[in-house]
């Protein structure tokens, strides 16, 4: 085949293509439907168990995730004095940051009427496990995540003793921490305000808390 013939063929083919596309293109577009979304896109990679373990530090209210180790109030007291007292006060009551220690007479729950009532671990926190989780992940602010598990157990024990929630010599570990009874627990209820998708519109303007 000569070069000229090839060129001619290409030319005819191009013209045919244009004519065909010009004729069928718009109709084809109109009929086209977008591809169905696949069940998976195959993007991302499997996470290795070790990668998960390195990040999976959260503690559940049932104690799930609590590490091995233990601590007592005596273990925690010197750590508190060195690392925590500067912000939370010598006995956990003085601030200047969050007041951590103190119960109210009869374990009253006056917070809706008294904005000044301190929301301490003993007066307001519904779960003791939260203290371990939060201290280990975020405290102290000048070196977050630097405390060893035994140090965190000791600090939690110290704070629970200061709040009169456990005996002075109690050992706090993965088994005992979820069992600590928190006075405020039963006050906490899920939000009951409506869900936008399931709530029928009401004719009259409504108020809600």
């Amino acid at each position, binding site marked *: 085949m000569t070069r000229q013939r090839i060129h001619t063929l290409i030319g005819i083919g191009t013209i045919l293509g244009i004519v065909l596309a010009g004729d069928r293109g718009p109709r084809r577009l109109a009929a086209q439907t977008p591809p169905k*979304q696949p*069940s*998976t*896109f195959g*993007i*991302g*990679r*499997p*996470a290795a168990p070790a*990668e*998960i373990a390195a*990040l*999976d*530090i*959260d*503690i*559940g*209210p*049932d104690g799930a995730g609590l590490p091995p180790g233990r601590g007592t109030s005596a273990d925690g007291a010197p750590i508190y004095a060195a690392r925590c007292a500067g912000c939370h006060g010598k006995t956990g009551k003085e601030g200047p940051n969050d007041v951590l220690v103190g119960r109210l007479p009869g374990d009253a*729950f*006056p*917070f*809706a*009427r008294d*904005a*000044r*009532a301190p*929301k301490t671990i003993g007066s*307001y*926190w*519904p*779960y003791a*496990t*939260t203290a371990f*989780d*939060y201290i280990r*992940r*975020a405290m102290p*602010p000048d070196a*977050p995540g630097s405390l060893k598990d035994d140090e965190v157990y000791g600090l939690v024990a110290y704070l629970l003793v200061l709040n009169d929630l456990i005996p002075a010599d109690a050992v706090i570990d993965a088994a005992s921490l979820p069992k600590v009874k928190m006075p405020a627990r039963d*006050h*906490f*209820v*899920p*939000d*009951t*305000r*409506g869900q*936008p*998708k399931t*709530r029928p*519109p*009401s*004719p*009259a*303007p*409504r*108020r*809600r*808390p």
Partner: protein
Amino acid sequence: MKVSRRALLAGAAGAVALGKTAVTQAPPATSDPTKVRGKPSRALGQRAPAEKPQRQVRPGASSSGTPHQDLYGTITPSDLHFERHHAGVPEIDPKSYTLLIHGMVERPMMFTLADLKRFPAVSRVHFLECSGNFGGRAGSADITPQQVAGLTSTSEWTGVALATLFREVGVRPQAKWFLAEGQDAALLTRSIPVSKAYDDALIAYGQNGEAIRPEQGYPARLFLPGWEGNASVKWLRRIELSDRPFMTREETSKYTDPMADGSARMFSFLMDARSLITYPAYPVTLTRGWVEINGIAWSGSGKIQRVDVSTDGGATWAHARLQEPVLSKAHTRFRHLWNWAGGEAVIMSRAVDETGYMQPARTELIAMRGAGSVGYHLNPITGWLIRSDGTVVFRQEQWT
């Protein structure tokens, strides 16, 4: 003309400063811009020198508010979007960023930022509001809209629907909650119902057409439309699926609402409807005549249906005009023409959303919550007092 006293003063101060430094330079040949060639193109645009809107950094520097009194529309410029963080703004390398999704899933997976951007994307305009967004209790009348409610902003957010990622990892049917964890020094965590993921949650990496700002969670954040800002965890590094909530510090000792009945409400995600007049407001001084009262309204439940404006302290109300398009869970601009004849007046606004919910008065809020439950979710009707001399101050109310 909407020029705040603050802006005028700032402009004047800037002019003085310029004058001082310009001594050694050649003075401008003319003040007539038609008689001198203008500036050439530049790689990065900047505001006009006279415009100096600023976020207001609050004590402790863990938050800053949007200057609503300086804004006209509904989109908040990204550098004026409010901030709230619990251990500062982290610097995260986008190249090493990963998001882990694990727990009650068929396939625990890691996603890089590039991975997230390969998924089908969605863009939506939504407000984001801190549930602690009410500065009207402080006792001062000399406060701006920024101080009353600066912790709400609206952006166009772009990202991947969380539902898409949940399908990718195969979330198990028994999973009802997920933990979202940030990569900041607080490793901030919140428990979120899985149903929100299948409703409208995003993993957002875009804000107003460009990458999310560091203060808003760069390189990627959770975004939960209409819900309290704290739950839209920034700098998101991990999602763990579970059959129960995790009871983190932020959803127990914080971000819960003591109620008048002696309970404490938790997982109070929804931001109820609210409105705020942004003009006229402190520190503006009005002159007699026609005034276009305007402001923003928003609701976490959907679209704003109506905004009522009163110019007589709540005795009578008129329907304001809503600027189209009215978008779901987004700031909506309202406007109301008023001919101020002079004399003292109190102007107020109240929002009604598409579910029929009406923004409550302070007294109604206190009746339901108690006067001490003042930390979060305060969305009372607020107003501005216009004095006979035209000065405008925040209308104060007794809270405790």
